């Protein structure tokens, strides 16, 4: 068998769009080789028509995420040696439309980010003084816990609720909303709270915690969403939801 040859990796790669199939390649095994290195080898040496996406190669940009052996991962920081001796199976991220080969269409992911008002909104009038944000304040600590998201969509691909409910905003968008709800400088709190209280918002989360399990940055979007649920419940009781 080709996959059992010493020094090579057998790689099954999804080719085509939704109705494609797997193609098999044999790639030389190298020291400290990442899954992204494997994909790049195939594209550079074996089949230049292979479509995939990457940019920084160092775990900052969040663009190289794919499904590796059934799990969503950031491929630039996933070492082949740590995945065991078996063949590699590579597919585009789940829960998103497929564009071609390993490239998923991230438009729905970022559309939902916008729908959750996942952007900083400054006050209409600029304040004379800078806002004071004590580093040890509860709000700042809560924002800090979720702020390092790189928007790779691994959590979205891992999420059962995102798979079942097309309206669900997803862990990344809600995590971003949570960091902004804890930003004392932001002026869009009421509008954002209304956006995340909708049917596909935070209350749709079942707390399966797949986002936490798969997040390559070790963030905990489930905890952020739980915070939003408490925030929405308190606002509902106080009559503060628009």
């Amino acid at each position: 068998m080709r996959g059992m040859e010493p020094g090579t990796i057998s790689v099954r790669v999804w080719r085509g769009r939704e109705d494609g199939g797997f193609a098999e390649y044999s790639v030389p095994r190298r020291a400290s080789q990442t899954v992204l290195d494997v994909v790049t080898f195939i594209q550079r040496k074996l089949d230049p028509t292979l479509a995939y996406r990457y940019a920084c190669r160092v775990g900052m940009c969040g663009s190289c995420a794919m499904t590796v052996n059934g799990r969503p991962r950031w491929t630039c920081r996933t070492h082949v040696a740590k995945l065991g001796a078996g063949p590699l199976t590579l597919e585009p991220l789940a829960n998103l439309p497929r564009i071609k080969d390993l490239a998923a269409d991230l438009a729905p992911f970022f559309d939902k980010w916008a729908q959750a008002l996942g952007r900083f909104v400054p006050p209409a009038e600029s304040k004379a003084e800078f806002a004071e944000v004590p580093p040890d304040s509860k709000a700042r600590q809560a924002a800090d816990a979720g702020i390092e998201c790189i928007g790779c969509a691994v959590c979205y691909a891992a999420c059962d609720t995102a798979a079942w409910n097309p309206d669900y905003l997803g862990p990344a968008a809600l995590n971003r909303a949570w960091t902004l709800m804890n930003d004392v400088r932001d002026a869009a709190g009421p509008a954002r709270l209304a956006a995340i209280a909708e049917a596909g918002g935070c209350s749709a989360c079942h707390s399966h915690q797949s986002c936490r399990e798969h997040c390559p940055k070790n963030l905990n979007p489930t905890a952020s969403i739980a915070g939003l649920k408490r925030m929405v419940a308190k606002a509902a009781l106080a009559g503060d939801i628009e």
Partner: protein
Amino acid sequence: MSRARVEAWLFVAQRASAAALGVCVAVHLATIVYAVRGGLTAAEILARTQGSVALALFYGVFVLAVAIHAPIGLRAIFREHLGWRGAALDAGIAIFAVLLVWLGWRALGGLFG
């Protein structure tokens, strides 16, 4: 009322009813285990439940909690797994809630009356 507000209230209602159900189920099970230690006949049960205001109040609340909690959960299941949503779903769920209250209180009436 805005959709966001309705959804937020449904969320609060489901969590609050879950909390009530937690207490109700525990009391219900503990009572059953205590009451049937030496065996229990239907006549003995009715002798204890008929005219019991405490029983009527407790199970009246129990039925209400079920009628709030179950339809909201079912609504989420229908939305996620059958793709059913909109006004027809909400109407169907409301009918189911009324049915649960009616059946539950009817059964309670049989024990109390």
